[in-house]
């Protein structure tokens, strides 16, 4: 993989931040966009800008072709059996809310149980908590092992005859570990439960095959995979989507409306109410093209290598806790704390050096509680990061330790 060539596609790396060349290591929050993505968005606005589906005119036709073409790219990116199984949403959060509302309000019943894990992002926890409260459902959580992996035995123990739904983070945004979703899919099938995968952190970094995985639903966010903000996708197995009630309603998703009620459009439009983020979808299609061109497998190897190198060098500093486990099942994320320095102070200092990392609870307060911390520093890598950038990170960490006399 030619990282130097790749970096040329990202004009943002010509920036200085606080007087230093930008080192962007907050990719698990959101990634940068290559010019190919921004240009696809611009081209849409300049050549084909119109609303989709509704109007009998050439502009609308062009917009619809681009928009539905992008959907097909997503379908093949995750090996869905049809583009009808891809629903555009704002991001992973909206995808999970769609599922919580539609399944929760219409398909789950009092006493039904939902299995989650304590390492879920708030987006895969709070929507279920709220629907559980409305409908008197019960949520049970599988724990994590001391070394920071999903406790699969605990998850098995949490599945009961009342389990109707299992929803699991594919790759943890804090620990970086990839959970064994294929195995969990089998457990779900055995239990007759719906299985949902939160792929917000995996889809950008590793090949996904929903057919092989055997999940019923999967969500991801475009802005975490080189795409624009405000767009993401929900994959749903066709039979599941057919049987499911819509989430939002309004224009486009209807077949026929009277004052008394309405019938629904075909898949996937049944789940897409109102004018969608057309430019966003087209941009995400371009992002997927970009990723396919580079090659996910190479990207993954590169990011894991950066993680291994970073973990090694950070560990050498001494006086650090690293929460990310070691292993080949861990993506390009390292979360850590330096003894005696609050993570915000670390992040704030790094920022002064032009190095952007995340500090905080990473929208995973329950996981933080498990790890017995309040928050942590996180560096997360993507295709355009380099070993030299890791070196700059580590050198800055050494300086902040000196500054804080720890």
């Amino acid at each position, binding site marked *: 993989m030619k990282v130097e060539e790749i970096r040329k596609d990202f004009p943002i790396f010509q920036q200085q931040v606080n007087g230093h060349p930008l080192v962007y290591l907050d990719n698990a929050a959101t990634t940068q966009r290559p010019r190919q993505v921004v240009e696809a968005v611009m081209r849409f606005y300049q050549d084909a800008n119109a609303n989709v589906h509704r109007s009998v005119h050439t502009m609308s036709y062009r917009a619809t072709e681009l928009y539905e073409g992008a959907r097909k790219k997503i379908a093949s990116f995750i090996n869905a059996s049809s583009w009808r199984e891809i629903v555009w949403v704002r991001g992973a959060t909206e995808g999970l809310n769609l599922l919580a509302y539609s399944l929760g309000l219409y398909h789950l019943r009092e006493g039904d149980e939902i299995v989650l894990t304590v390492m879920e992002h708030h987006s895969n926890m709070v929507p279920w908590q709220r629907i559980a409260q409305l409908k008197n459902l019960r949520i049970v959580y599988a724990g994590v092992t001391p070394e920071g992996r999903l406790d699969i035995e605990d998850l098995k123990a949490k599945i009961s005859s009342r389990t109707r739904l299992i929803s699991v983070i594919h790759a943890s945004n804090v620990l970086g570990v990839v959970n064994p979703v294929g195995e969990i899919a089998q457990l779900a099938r055995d239990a007759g439960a719906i299985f949902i995968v939160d792929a917000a952190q995996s889809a950008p970094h590793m090949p996904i095959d929903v057919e092989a995985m055997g999940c019923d639903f999967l969500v991801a966010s475009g802005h975490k995979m080189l795409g624009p903000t405000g767009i993401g996708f929900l994959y749903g197995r066709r039979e599941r989507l057919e049987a499911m009630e819509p989430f939002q309603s309004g224009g*486009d998703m209807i077949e026929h409306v009277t004052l008394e009620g309405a019938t629904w459009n075909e898949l996937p439009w049944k789940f897409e109410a109102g004018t969608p983020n057309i430019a966003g979808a087209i941009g995400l299609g371009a992002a997927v093209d970009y990723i396919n061109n580079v090659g996910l497998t190479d990207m993954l190897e590169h990011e894991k290598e950066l993680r291994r190198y970073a973990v090694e060098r950070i560990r050498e500093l001494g006086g650090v806790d690293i929460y990310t486990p070691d292993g080949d099942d861990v993506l390009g994320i390292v979360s850590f704390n330096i003894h005696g320095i609050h993570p915000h102070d670390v992040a704030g200092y790094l920022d002064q050096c032009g190095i952007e990392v995340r500090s905080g609870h990473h929208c995973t307060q329950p996981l933080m509680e498990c790890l017995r911390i309040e928050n942590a520093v996180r560096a997360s890598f993507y295709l355009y990061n380099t070993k030299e950038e890791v070196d700059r990170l580590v050198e800055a960490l050494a300086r902040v330790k000196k500054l804080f006399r720890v």
Partner: protein
Amino acid sequence: MSEYDDVQMEYILELYRNPRNKGTIENPDITHQEGNPSCGDEIRIDVKLDGDRIGEIKFSGKGCAISQAAASILTEMVKGKTLEEVKKLTKEDMLKAIGVPLSPIRLKCGLLALKVLKAGLYGIKGWPGEEE
């Protein structure tokens, strides 16, 4: 040249104003109705089988000149054909039968009748050829 060419239009208009096989069948073997939610056009097709062949076929519904003319053409075309033969009909076959080149935005109008017929006969959903 397009569907709005004067001569081409003549042909479409004639079928629009005087369609063949317009109406319904009492006690049809197969009846199916579907619309195009984005524009509100709707077509219903009734079929009476003759063994494994299309015996009688009628269409009803509402829509633009092109969708109505296409329904007229399709019903003429499949009369007497076996279900196997009809199943093999493609998008391209339909467009060829219409004869008039359609601009991309009118393809759905031209293909609606075929979509309804296939959905009625075989439960095939979606626009023909669109599913992969």
